[in-house]
């Protein structure tokens, strides 16, 4: 079965999740666990780094939808970075760019949290 890995690290006050491999209905619970941990820790500013993600299914997209509300209610957000074109197309088709912020580089996304006025 396809492999998936979600690694959590902190960059300043922002939490960065590195996702890797295939994110689908079978591996989505792993990512959910990471988000649950963040909610428990009251870490609401999240950047998801898609550099190593090969594939995402609709169930994988559902994970972000499930948590974005909680993050935003607590003055946080989920931002996406380093997305490959094929993965971005799936987000794009669904209209995610209207609802979420996408960045080319991770540090841009992190910076956005500390200085929301810019850009």
């Amino acid at each position: 079965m396809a492999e998936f890995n979600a690694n959590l690290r902190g960059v300043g006050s922002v939490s960065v999740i590195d996702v890797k491999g295939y994110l689908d209905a079978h591996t989505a619970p792993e990512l959910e666990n990471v988000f649950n941990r963040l909610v428990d820790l009251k870490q609401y500013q999240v950047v998801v780094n898609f550099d190593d993600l090969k594939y995402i299914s609709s169930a994988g997209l559902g994970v972000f939808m499930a948590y974005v509300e909680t993050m935003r209610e607590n003055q946080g957000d989920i931002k996406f970075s380093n997305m490959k074109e094929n993965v971005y197309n799936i987000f794009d088709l669904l209209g995610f760019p209207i609802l979420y912020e996408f960045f080319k580089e991770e540090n841009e996304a992190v910076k956005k949290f500390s200085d929301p006025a810019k850009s």
Partner: protein
Amino acid sequence: MKFSGIRGLENAIMLSIVLFLFNLIFPIHDAFLLSLIHEGIVFLTIFFLYNYLQQSLSRRLDTPLSLVLNVGILGSLLFFVLSIANSTYEADSSGKIPLNFFNSLLFVLISFLFIASIVYIFTSLRELFFLRQKKDPSVYFNTMLVFFTLSFFSNILILADSELDYPFSAFYVVSIVLICLNSIRVAWIAFLTKKQKYYLLGLSIVLSIVYGLAYSLAFDSEVSSQLIKVFSPGLRAVFSLVMIYGSIYFGVVFFVTLFHLPTAEVFDRKVQEVASMMDITKLITQVFDFKELADTITSMTTQACNSDSAWLVTNTKNGIELNSVHKIGYVDANDISSRMLGSGNASFENIEVINYESLFRDKKFVENVFHSVAVAPLTMHGKINGYLFTARTKGNSFDAEDRKSLQAFAYYAAVALDNAILIKKSIEKERLEKEFDVARDIQRKILPSVVPSSHQIAVSALFVPAFEVGGDYYDFFELDDENLGFVVADVSGKGISAAFIMAEVKGIFESLSKIIQRPAELLDKVNGVLKGNIEKKNFVTAVYGIINRKTGILNMSRAGHTPSLLCSKGTVTRLQPSGIGLGLDFTNNFSKSIKELEVQLNDDDIIVCYSDGIPEAKNSLGEDFGYEKFEKIISENCSKNLDEISNLVMKELSLFSKDYPQHDDITLVMFRWKQKQ
């Protein structure tokens, strides 16, 4: 000595008759030759009878005690007959018994009785000799047989010359020595139960004495001595040897049994343990109900460990669960287990025996006050799944043997538990698969069974479900004479939840399509209805369109769905008005994002709507089928019949995916508009 015993009985009977007639014709055979012939016949009779009995008795090897009892009865009978004979003939005894016809006949009959009895006794002793012998000891026994025969025949020599008694004495003494040697083979006693051993103890001492008395009676008393001697001196020799054998053998049996008595109980327990282990092994493979097995295990544990109570607990998510109790109340067992195991933190990786008072020093809160409690873990694949407890109210603590049995039962319980869990899982899986079948059925029924083809619009719809229930949905709505509405949607995720949402979505589209004529407005309303009726992580992508049959104008909106395709004269264009997926956002972002697209169709133009199951179909390398490949098939086959096109798409898809299983539903809906001529 093995001779064909098939005709043993016939031969023995025939020789008996010969012997009988011989005795009738020659009641007194003083002549040496006659005596010799007579002895020969007697010997052959004995030999054939022995051969026959040897065969028939060997079938009764499982019941040595009944064999002993038979030997005892026959021995007593002989003793009785000898005593009667003694007292009857003593009266007129003047040294010799008067020989008349009646007496001779009686003698012969008594002699027959003797022959039959001693052969039976001897054969029985032989069976006991061979019983439970691992190595073949027949050479010892056969040597003894040879000396018995030699004694038999050497005794005749005395008739010829009374000086010639030394060969007989020699053979006789050697025979007795061999008897002593052979009498120590009594291994079978060890395998008797305690009760049987007590029984044998009494029986053997009585038999030893009876045989001893019978021997002395046959020799000391003049009457009985003559009785047999006159008939056959050889028989007398053999008779005395067998009596000695019996006496010595049962003497040995008595003492051996006596020494075996202290260990009888241990032996019994071991035998019982082995038996119950075999029972359990059989049960494990036959009984699927763990509760039933647990009951058997606890009851067997009390027996094998000689304890007063036993109970079995298994670890569950919410702590421990009591599965079976034996001779203890549920509440007490629960109390003791939870005290010993704590709140699930404490664990016993090995067998442990706990002094009850140290455990419950504070108060005696249970009715059964135990002296000691032993606990063994049910370990399977290195994981502890539960515990088997056993307890004694008094007496000694559990010794090494008890622990071994407890461990064995705990092991069996672990295997049974593992089995039961596996079976439960497989039943659960089967049940789920059945439910999936039902869900797949429902999904099929929700989809339209016929397509609304007409002269102006040809319609083709293809739906190929994946193994798991998916959430693809398409439908057609006859809005009025001119307008045909259609929807192609895909619910995120798979399984039962997706199927439920799909059914919900169908209901919403069916009712709203009748009221709202604008596709963008309709999708916006659908999104509004979904709010609160759908989980946060679920969403639905959809494309909704209306084709006017008369004018060929298509109005469509897209909510996050794969772009529809317009194929006009071999050129494919993506119809991708903006719009986010349904259920993604419930603010005005949705209505802001959703746009409507109007397209004027030309004659023979094709509109293609599909689910992401087509472009995202995978091959074994993990590559996508892709949009380009799909669009190429459409553009190259634009002029073909719609059904032909969908067959081609499916063919290309299966060629691409080959052995890789289809992981998402595939939906392909196509329309072709024809201008009215």
